C-alpha cells in the first residue's frame, strides 16, 4: 500500500483517531492496527502518541489504565468524551464537504 503524503495525513489523522476511538474503547497499539487495516498505509506509531496526548489535553478523549486481555502489561484504554464527539461530528462535516468538492472537480474535468 502507498505511503500517504505526511501533509495529507496530518490534517486527517486526528479525525481518524477520534473515529477509531468512537467505534470502541481501545489502546494505542490497536488504534495503530485499525488505521493500517483501514488502509492508511504505513503510519509510525510515534505519530499517534502526541495526537492522543493532544486530544486528552483538549478533553476530547479520556484514558483509563486496565489489565491487558492477552496477559501483557496494563494498557491505557481510551474512550470518547462529549467534546470529542462534537469534534468528530465537525470533522465528518468538513470531510464530507471536501470529498464532495473533489468529486465535483473531477466531474468538471470529464
Amino acid at each position, binding site marked *: 500500500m502507498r505511503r500517504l503524503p505526511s501533509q495529507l495525513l496530518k490534517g486527517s489523522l486526528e479525525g481518524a483517531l477520534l473515529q477509531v476511538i468512537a467505534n470502541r474503547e481501545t489502546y494505542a*497499539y490497536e488504534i495503530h492496527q485499525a488505521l493500517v487495516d483501514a488502509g492508511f498505509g504505513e503510519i*509510525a*506509531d*510515534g*505519530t499517534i*502518541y*502526541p495526537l492522543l496526548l493532544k486530544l486528552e489535553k483538549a478533553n476530547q478523549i479520556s484514558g483509563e489504565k486496565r489489565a491487558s486481555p492477552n496477559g*501483557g*502489561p496494563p494498557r*491505557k484504554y481510551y474512550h470518547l468524551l462529549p467534546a470529542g464527539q462534537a469534534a468528530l461530528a465537525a470533522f465528518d462535516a468538513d470531510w464530507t464537504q471536501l470529498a464532495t468538492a473533489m468529486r465535483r472537480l473531477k466531474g468538471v474535468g470529464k
Partner: protein
Amino acid sequence: MSETLLPRNQEYYDRLAAYVTDAIGVDGKAAEETMAEIHADLLQAQANGISAADYFGHDPKTIGNQLVATLPHLTWQDWLRFAVITWAISFLVFAWRYIFNGLSRVPLGTAAVLAIILPVGVLVGMAVYRSGTFTRKKFRDSGIVVLIVCQTMLLPVSDLFPKFGRVVIPPTALAVIGFGMALVLIGFGIWLGMHSWVFAALCSVFATLFALPAADALGTLPGWWGRLLIPGMFLLFMLIIRGGDALWPAKWQAKAGD
C-alpha cells in the same frame, strides 16, 4: 508475550525514554506514564515480529520532540517549589562540605551563591547531554553522568570560588543539624522500603557524613573509640535502615504504592 524487549529494541526505547523524561520542565509523572504505554506497545509489536524502529518510527528525535511538546509541563508554582527545595538542599550540601573539611568559620555567603550556580549548571549540562541522546555511541543514564561530573569536576572546582559571608556556627547548632540530617536520611531510607543492602549502605554513607562533624562538635571520643567512630556510625546506620525497612509496615512505605 515476552515481558522484556530485545537488546536492540530496548536501546531504542531507553534512548527515547531518556530524551522525553530528561526534557527540562516536563511533568515527570506524565512522561513516565506515556513511556510505560509506549513500552507496552513496543512489547506487543516485538511479539508480532516488528522492530521498535519499524513500529515507532525511524526518526525518534522528532517524535520525542512532539511528545515533549504535548506532555503537561511544570507550572510556575512547581518551578518555584523546585527552585526553593533545590537551593535549600544545595546550600546545605555546600555548607556542610565546608564544615566537614574543618573550616571553623563557614562561608555561608559562598555556599548560598554556589547553591544557585550548581543547579543551573546541572540543568544546562543536562540539556546539552540530552541533545546528544540519539547520536551518542553508547547510551548512559543522565543521572549517573550528572553525579559523576558533580563529584569529579563541579564540587572540586567550587572549592576555588572566593570565600565570603563567613559565620561561626555554634557547636550545639552543628550537632542538631548534623544529627537531625542523619535522622532524616535514615528515616528516608526506611520510608523508601528498598529492602537493599546497597541502598542502605549509600544512605548510611550520607548519614555518616552529616553525623560525624556533629559528633566532632560535641568533642571527639579519645583513642580507639574515636577511630571506630566512622565505621561504627556507618554500620549502625545501615543496620537501623535495614532493620527499619523490614519491620516498618509496608503500607507506609513508598514502594507499597508500586
